C-alpha cells in the first residue's frame, strides 16, 4: 500500500493513497462537518459544508471526497474556513422549510416543552409529563392561574379548529394528585457555595430553585411575609383557590433545601454589602427598584430598570446579578420565571469559574405564517377535537378529557430537533437563516404515503443518502432525484408511494437522513434545551 504524506492545519499525517482529506483529518482528530457524506456509501459531493482550503492553489475543496495528494497542505480550522462553512450552511438554510421548535414553545418565555408535554400525556406517561412542566416552569400551577398564555395564541391548531388548552394542561399536570409523587423534587447534593437571592417573587423563586437544582445552596431574602410577589397582583389571584394551589405548589420547593428568609427587607448599602460579602453571588429579584435605591446601592440604572449585560444579566457590580421586573418591569410572571432560570445559569458559571455563563439561543428554523390550507398538513398528527375542553380551574384530574386534549397537539415541532445535523452545524457555526432569505417559499408538505415514515421535502438537503442506500440495497423502485436545478427533489421513482420507494430500507434511510426530511411518523426526539450555555 502506497502512503501519502499531507498536512492539515500544519500537522503532518501519513495516510494510505486513495484516502480522502476527511479520512486524513479524522486520523488527526480534526473535526470537519459533513452532511452528504456517509461512510460506506459512494461519494456524492453535494452539500459542500466540508469545505477546506488547499493552501498551494488557494482553491476550496470538499474534504469528504477529495483524494489526498502527496505534499498537500490543507487549512481546515481557520477563521476563513469557519466563515465559509457558515455561509454554505446559510445557503442551505435559506431553502430549509420547517420549524425546529414548535411555535408554542417559542412563544413561551420559559420555553416549556409543550409538544413533549402533550406527547407524554397522550401516551399516559403522566409522571414524566408532570416532571417536565415542573422542570421548565417551576411554578406550573400558579402560572396555570395567572399566565396570559401567549403559547396558545401561536398554536397551529388554532388555524384548524381551536388552539390547544396548553395552560390548563400544565396546571393540571402540576397539581394532579396522580403526579404528586414525582413532583416532589429530588435535589442534587449541595456541592457549591451559597448564593443569595433578594426577593421572593416569581423571578426570585425561579432563580433560587434553578440554582438549587444546579447544586448550590440558596438563601432567599423576602421583605414581606409571603412568597409570590407580583403573582398576587394578578386578578386571578383573588380567587381563594389560587392561594391554596400556590401554597401547595410552594411546598415542593420549601424546606431545608432552600432557606427562605421572610420579613427580611434588604435596604441599606451596608445590608447589601453584607449579603454580597457573605455569599458567592447575589441575585437581585426585587420586582422593581426605585432610582434612589439603585443609587444608594451603586447600581447603574436606565430609564426602566437596572442596566445589565444582556447575555449574562450581571449588573455593573461584579457578582451581583438581576432578574425579572427589576431589569424590565413587566406583567408576565412567566417572563420573570424564565429570567430567574437564565440568571441562575449565569450565576452558576460565575461561581464556578469567575465568568458568568452566556446563554445563547439554539438555532431555530421557522416556517412563519401559514398559507391558507397549509395547516391540513399537520391534521393527521393531532387527535380529534371533542368539543370545548371542560372549563378551566375546576379540576385537578388528569381524566380522559385531559388526555384527549393533549392528544390534539399536532406535534408541529421538528421530529429530529435534537439530532438534526443541519441544526447542530448551524449552532456550531453560528449560521443565520435569514442572511440569504428567499422572498418566496414553497408550500409545507408532509408526505405520509408510508405507514411508518413521514417525508418533508422542505427539509431535504438533496444529499441523496437515501437514494444511495436504496440503490445499494437493490430496491426495485428506490428513491431518486426528480427534476433538476433549484426545483430538484428527492422522490420515489415514478413519484410512486414512499412505501414502495423506500422499500425494505426505510428504517436505515430514516436513521441516515441528516435532517428530519425523513423521520418516523410517531417518533419525536426527546426535546432538548432551546439554548446553549457557553
Amino acid at each position, binding site marked *: 500500500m502506497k502512503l501519502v504524506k499531507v498536512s492539515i492545519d500544519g500537522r503532518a499525517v501519513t495516510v494510505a493513497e486513495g484516502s480522502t482529506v476527511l479520512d486524513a483529518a479524522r486520523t488527526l482528530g480534526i473535526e470537519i462537518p459533513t452532511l452528504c457524506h456517509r461512510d460506506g456509501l459512494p461519494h456524492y459531493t453535494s452539500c*459542500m459544508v466540508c469545505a477546506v482550503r488547499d493552501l498551494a492553489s488557494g482553491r476550496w475543496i470538499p474534504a469528504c471526497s*477529495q*483524494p489526498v495528494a502527496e505534499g498537500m497542505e490543507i487549512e481546515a480550522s481557520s477563521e476563513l474556513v469557519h466563515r465559509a462553512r457558515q*455561509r454554505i450552511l446559510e445557503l442551505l438554510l435559506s*431553502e430549509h422549510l420547517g420549524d425546529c421548535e414548535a411555535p408554542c414553545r417559542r412563544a413561551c418565555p420559559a420555553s416549556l416543552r409543550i409538544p413533549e408535554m402533550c406527547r407524554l400525556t397522550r401516551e399516559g406517561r403522566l409522571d414524566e409529563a408532570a416532571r417536565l412542566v415542573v422542570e421548565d416552569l417551576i411554578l406550573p400551577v400558579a402560572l396555570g392561574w395567572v399566565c396570559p398564555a401567549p403559547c396558545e395564541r401561536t398554536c397551529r391548531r388554532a388555524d384548524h379548529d381551536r388552539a390547544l388548552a396548553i395552560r390548563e394542561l400544565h396546571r393540571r399536570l402540576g397539581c394532579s394528585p396522580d403526579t404528586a409523587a414525582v413532583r416532589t423534587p429530588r435535589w442534587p447534593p449541595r456541592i457549591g457555595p451559597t448564593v443569595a437571592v433578594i426577593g421572593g417573587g416569581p423571578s426570585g423563586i425561579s432563580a433560587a430553585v434553578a440554582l438549587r437544582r444546579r447544586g448550590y445552596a440558596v438563601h432567599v431574602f423576602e421583605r414581606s411575609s409571603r412568597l409570590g410577589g407580583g403573582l398576587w397582583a394578578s386578578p386571578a389571584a383573588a380567587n381563594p383557590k389560587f392561594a391554596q394551589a400556590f401554597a401547595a405548589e410552594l411546598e415542593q420547593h420549601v424546606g431545608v433545601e432552600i432557606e427562605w428568609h421572610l420579613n427580611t427587607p434588604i435596604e441599606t448599602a451596608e445590608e447589601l454589602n453584607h449579603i454580597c460579602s457573605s455569599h458567592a453571588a447575589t441575585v437581585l429579584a426585587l420586582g422593581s427598584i426605585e432610582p434612589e435605591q439603585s443609587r444608594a446601592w451603586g447600581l447603574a440604572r436606565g430609564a426602566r430598570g437596572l442596566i445589565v449585560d444582556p447575555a449574562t444579566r450581571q449588573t455593573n457590580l461584579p457578582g451581583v446579578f438581576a432578574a425579572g421586573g427589576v431589569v424590565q418591569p413587566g406583567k408576565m410572571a412567566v417572563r420573570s420565571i424564565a429570567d430567574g432560570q437564565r440568571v441562575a445559569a449565569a450565576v452558576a458559571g460565575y461561581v464556578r469559574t469567575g465568568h458568568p455563563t452566556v446563554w445563547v439561543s439554539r438555532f431555530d428554523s421557522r416556517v412563519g405564517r401559514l398559507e391558507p390550507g397549509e395547516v391540513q398538513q399537520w391534521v393527521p398528527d393531532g387527535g380529534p377535537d371533542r368539543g370545548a375542553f371542560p372549563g378551566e380551574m375546576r379540576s385537578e384530574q388528569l381524566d380522559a378529557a385531559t388526555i384527549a386534549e393533549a392528544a390534539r397537539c399536532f406535534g408541529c415541532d421538528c421530529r429530529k430537533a435534537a439530532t438534526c445535523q443541519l441544526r447542530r452545524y448551524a449552532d456550531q457555526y453560528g449560521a443565520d437563516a435569514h442572511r440569504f432569505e428567499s*422572498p418566496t417559499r414553497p408550500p409545507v408538505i408532509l408526505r405520509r404515503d408510508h405507514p411508518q415514515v413521514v417525508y418533508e421535502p422542505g427539509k431535504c438537503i438533496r444529499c441523496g443518502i437515501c437514494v444511495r442506500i*436504496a440503490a445499494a440495497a437493490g430496491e426495485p423502485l428506490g*428513491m431518486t432525484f426528480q427534476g433538476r*436545478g433549484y426545483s430538484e427533489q428527492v422522490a420515489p421513482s415514478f413519484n410512486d408511494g414512499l412505501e414502495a420507494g423506500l422499500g425494505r430500507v426505510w428504517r436505515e434511510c430514516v436513521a441516515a437522513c441528516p435532517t428530519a426530511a425523513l423521520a418516523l411518523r410517531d417518533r419525536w426526539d426527546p426535546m432538548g434545551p432551546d439554548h446553549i450555555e457557553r
Partner: protein
Amino acid sequence: MKNPASKAPQEVRLDEVDRLIEQVGSSAEHALPLLQALQERYGYLPEVALRRIVERTEITAANLWSVATFYPQLRLRPAGRHQICVCVGTACHVKGAERVYEAVQRELRIPEGSDTDPDGEYTVRKVTCLGCCTLAPVVMVDHVTYGHRTADNLRAMLEDFARHSARAMADPLSGDNQSDASWEGEVRIGLGSCCIAGGSARVEAALREAIQRTGRRIRVRHVGCVGMCHQTPLVEVVTSEGQAVRYSRVRPDDVARIIEAHFQPTGVRRFLRLAEQAVEQVLGYGVGGDPSSVRQLDPRDSQVEAFTCRQMHIATEYCGSLHPLDLGEYRRHGGLEALRQCLTSRTFEDVIEEIERSGLRGRGGAGFPTGLKWRRVRASADPIRYVICNGDEGDPGAFMDRMLMESYPYRVLEGLIIAAWAVGAREGILYIRAEYPLALRRIGAAIERLRQEGWIGRNILGTGWDLELRIARGGGAFVCGEETALIASIEGRRGSPSLRPPYPAERGYRGHPTLVNNCETLALVPWILRHGAEAFASIGTPHSKGTKVFALAGKVARGGLVEVPMGITLRQIVEDIGGGAAGGRRWKAVQVGGPSGGCVPESLGDTPVDYEALQAVGAMMGSGGLVVLDEADCMVDVARYFLSFTARESCGKCSPCRVGTQRMLEILDRLCEGRARPDDLMRLEEIAELTRRHSLCGLGRTAPNPVLTTLRFFRSEYEAHLQGHCPAGRCVKLIRYEVGPECIGCTRCAQVCPVGAIPPNPYRPHVIRADACVRCDLCRTSCPTQAIRIVPNTNASTVAPVQPPELCTAEVPS
C-alpha cells in the same frame, strides 16, 4: 400538471415499446437514447412505456426516472401536435425574445400555467439557443427555423408553417459535387442552419428553376457556412472565366434576375443587361431589383473586406467554398492528409509532441493544454481508452461548434480520429446537442462516408488499428458540456458533474481513461499537423496560440461567424469586423464567453483575445460567443438574463450552485423590478463569491462572472435600479409608454396593441392605459411618427424620456 387542453394521448402499445428497446438497446447506457426514441414516437414519455423499459432492460427505475426528469428536452405529459421553440439565447434576448415568447402565447391563446394551446395544436417552450444568433429573435416550429421574429410577424410565421407543414425536415444538401470540366459556371449557395433559416432552401429551388430556363450547363453547389450570417441567404455566382460575384439576402424572386445577369444568350440583349447592371451598381442597388432585398457583394466593397480581412481561417479553412459532405473535394484540399501521415509515417509520441509544441489549448472554454491532455491519456496503463468529441454547445449566443460540424464534418472527424490514434483509443463518441439536427445528420453522413472509404472501422489503412465512432445525442442540458457530466450522460445517468480528480484522462467513460476534446479543438488538429506546430504557434500571443472562432452577434452591424487570430483585440472584432453597433449607435460592452464569461466594457475594448487577458478582466474565453451590447441594453437585465440561464441549467447537485444561483437571481429580479433593498448589492456580491469558490463544477464556479463583471464595470446602473430607475429603459417594471405630441391620431398603435390598452381615437392624440399595458413595445415600433416614448415608471411627469431600445427589423420569410 394535467393539461386538459392537449389532445388525447395516443394509446401506447407495449409491443411497440419492446421494438424500440430492441432497436436502441437495453443496457444501462441506453437510458437517454431510449427516452429520446420514446419522445420522438409519442411526443412525450408515457409512464406505461417507462415502466416497460424498467421491466425489459438493465435500467433501474431510479435511474430512468431521474434521467427522464433531468433533461429539458424530455417531457412527461402529452404535447401539442407541433412544437414551437422560442429561442431565448443571448442574442435573441437582447433583441426582445421575451416579448416574442409572450406574444406567441397570446397569439395562440395559451391558458395561464399551460404550454399548449386549447386545440392541442402547438406546444410552446423556451429553448436556450438555436444557434442562429445573427437572425435573432429566432423561433423554431417543429424543424423549421424562422428568423427576425417580432410580436407582429408571428401570425405570418404560423400561416407559413401551416402552408408548408407537410414539408418534412430534410437536409437540402445534395450528395458530393460532381467534378466535371464541362460546366459553364456554378452557383454556390450556403446551407448552414442560419442560411436555411434565412430561406436558402427555397432560394435554391428557385435557382434550379431559373437555371433550367437558361438551358445552360450551370451547376448548383452546396457549400457550408460562409460566416456572413448577417447577409443570408448568400448566393455566389462563379462564371466559367472564374469570376465570382456574391449576392446577399437573396429572395426567391431575385434569383431569375441574378441568373440572367450572368448566364444568358449572346446578342444585343446581353449588352443591354450589362449596361443596366453597371448603372445599378453605381446606385448601390442589387441586380434590377428591390434595393432592400438583394445586394451584390463586391469583395472590394469595404464592408465585405473589413469583415473578411482580419480573419484567418484554420478551423474554417476554405470557408464558403467546400461542400460539407464532398469527401473528394475535402481530400483535394489537403483533407485526411494529416491523418494519412499519422497512420503511415508518424509515431504517436511525435504527434503528441507536435500538438504540445503548437501551444494548442482547449477551445471549450477553460483552455487546458491539449497536448498535455493527450499525453495523460496515452500514459495510462489501462489499455482500454476512449475519445469523446464534445459537441454539446449549450452556451446561449454561441454556434461555432454547430457551424463546424455542419460545414466541416470531415475536419472534425479527422481531428477526432487523429486524437484517437494518438492516445491509443479504439472507440470514439461524438456528443452532439439534439437541438442541432443538421449537425447530427451531417456528422452521421460523414462517419458513414469515412467508414465506406476505410478511414473508420477495422484495420484502418492496413495498420491493424481499429476505430469505431458513434454519435450520442445530447438532451438539451447545458451542464453536459462539463466533461464529467457529459460522460455521465453518455453512460445513461443524469448529467450531473462529479468531483475531479479523478479526471476523465485517468478514469472517465466506463471507468477507463477518456480524452474529451471540444469540436473546435479537434478541427484545428489536421491543420497543425499539415503545416507544423511552428506555423500554428507563430499566430497569437505568448500563451494563447492559433485562432479562435467566435460567434459575433447581438447589436452589431455585421454579425456572423468569424475566425480570428488570438491576440486580436475585442475592439478590432467588434468595430473592424463587425462594423460596430448597428444603427450607428455606440456599443457599450461585449459579452464574452456566455454564461461563464463576463461583460467587457467598451473602455476595455483593447483587451486582446487571450485566455489569461480575458480572465484578468473577469470574463472568460468560454466557447466563443461574442454578444455586442449597445446603449439600449440594461446591464442589470443582462446579468439577470445569464443568471436565469445558469439557475435553470444548474443540475441541482451541489448546494452553492443550486441555491446560490437562485438567490442571486432573486436579488436581480428585485433590482429589475425596483424592489431591491439597499444592502442587496452587498448580498449579491457575497453569494457570487460563495458560488464561485465552492461549486462543484465549472458551471457553478463561473456562473457569477456575468454578475461580478457587470457589478465591477457598470455599478452605477445597479445603483440606479436601487433607486427604481432603469437607465436603459429596458426593465419593463421600471418603464411605461407615453404618447407624445407628435401623435397624428392614425390609430395604428391601437390596432396593434394586443391587450387593448390604447383606445382608438381617430385624428386625436392617443393615450396608453398604463394599467393594461404589457410593455410589448409593439405600439412604439409601429408608430409612423415616433410619437410613442419610453419613460421611467414614476408618477412625476417631468422626467426626461430615456433612450429607447433598438428597433428590431422585421423580416418575414416569403
